[in-house]
């Protein structure tokens, strides 16, 4: 068996080198749908972080009991359990936010980031590695979501977390809070991240 990455490597890789959104292009449905405001984006990131951490830990604990042909079913059931907890929690304590996020919290069940991490890391490595992997990926996801949401909220409403950061005379770019704004912002930020990546590798002489 090839050497598996250590917990620290897993943690660091999730944040930028293997960022789930900008590098692996996973979980784009919530990325595009809930990033029209910082509050929604942060809540979404927290929900995903909770589900990802719990699912990774449980999957890692039962990894020796998994039958290969049934593993996806087990992953999905594990994830669904925690998504239900997160969904009911939001509905109970943050009702307004739960309304805003709508179907996107239940949809975490089919979020490919989590299934991907269970498959790639948690079903093969120890609990500690799986947990640090989950943390790294969650931070990466949160970074991606909040970077897109920051651009969209500031340009679209002149506000950040609901606080006014641009003068009141700022003409709101309504398109940025609408779906086209999500695609444009995401595309441009993705291009920027790729450009920085290629610029770096050129500089270090990898090309």
């Amino acid at each position, binding site marked *: 068996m090839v050497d598996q990455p250590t917990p620290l490597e897993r943690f660091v890789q999730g944040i930028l080198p293997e960022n789930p959104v900008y590098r692996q292009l996973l979980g784009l449905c919530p990325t595009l749908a809930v990033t029209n405001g910082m509050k929604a984006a942060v809540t979404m990131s927290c929900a995903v972080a909770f589900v990802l951490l719990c699912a990774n830990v449980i999957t890692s604990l039962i990894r020796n009991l998994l039958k290969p042909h049934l593993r996806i079913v087990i992953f999905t059931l594990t994830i669904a359990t925690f998504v239900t907890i997160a969904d009911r929690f939001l509905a109970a304590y943050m009702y307004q936010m739960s309304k805003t996020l709508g179907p996107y919290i239940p949809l975490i069940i089919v979020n490919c980031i989590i299934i991907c991490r269970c498959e790639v890391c948690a079903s093969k490595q120890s609990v500690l590695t799986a947990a640090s992997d989950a943390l790294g990926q969650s931070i990466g996801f949160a970074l991606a979501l909040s970077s897109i949401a920051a651009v969209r909220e500031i340009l679209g409403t002149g506000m950040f977390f609901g606080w006014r950061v641009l003068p009141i005379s700022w*003409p709101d*770019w*309504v*398109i*940025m809070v*609408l779906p*086209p704004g999500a695609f*444009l912002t995401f595309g441009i930020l993705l*291009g920027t991240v790729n450009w920085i990546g290629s610029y770096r590798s050129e500089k270090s002489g990898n090309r």
Partner: protein
Amino acid sequence: MAENIKKIKTAPVIHVAPSPHLSSMALTTRRMMIDVVIALIPVVLTALYVFRWYAAKQLFICIASCFAAEMIFMKMRSKAFSLNDYSATVTAIILALSLPGTAPWYVGVIASFVAIGIGKVIFGGVGMNIFNPAMVGRAFVMIAFASAMAASGYEDSASAVDAITQATPMDAFKQTGITTSLSALFWGPTNGSLGETSAFACIIGGLYLCMRRTASWEIPTGVIASVVVFAGIANLVNPQSQWTVLHHLLGGSLLFGAFFIATDPVSSPLTPKGKFIFGIGIGAFIMLLRLFSGYPEGVMFAVLLMNALTPLINRWTVPRALGEQ
């Protein structure tokens, strides 16, 4: 690797290239773009006459910001910056003429940057864009600044320019059922986007473009034919309507769009048959949007929608090679 390439480049080679081996030196991007600028002169003059300094201001803003955008984005792509092919000029003028004169300054600036950046450079520059750049810019500001670009944004009752104080003909009819006389629609002393008001100026410029073969005549013909057919059907269904086929033809930005926007050679199909289908599609979408959508006018969205279908039309209309069954 680099050394190998150098070797190949310096080695003596027999020049082998795919056809065409002869090309007309006169048929360059630059010549076509200059043709478009010449054809736009009557439209620009009418706009300056009707809207006075509103038109001058909007033209200046768009041209200056398109040049700035071109410079910045070409530098980012580390390509040589040049305005020599006049494509940025054409985009700027068409964009300015498609905006309302009353639009605030930032509308023109943002539309220009979106047109050049997202409409053109991101796809690889001149000749690579799939959508008409000017219309991408206009669509962006249309959705972003809905209040400045909606029909009510065209009016300013305090303005010193007569045309600006009225509602646009399309909106006046859509909201209150008031028809504008055909002669006003033809000569252009009405409110509207800067370049669209005078059907006469658009026809003069458009005929020049078609005669110079810079624009393919199939596209405007297709647009006008399908608008005539669909407007005719609409009139037969609803015979008491005051807005006749001729109103549909001369009003709004139909002729401006048909002659100057739809004929963009980059984002329209390649074959004559394809161009005809493209034109008919635009006309059909325009009538669909005019009759059934909340917007009084639909030329911009019609052109963008058909731009998206251009690759498909190209695939349908591949010409049969000589002797092929």
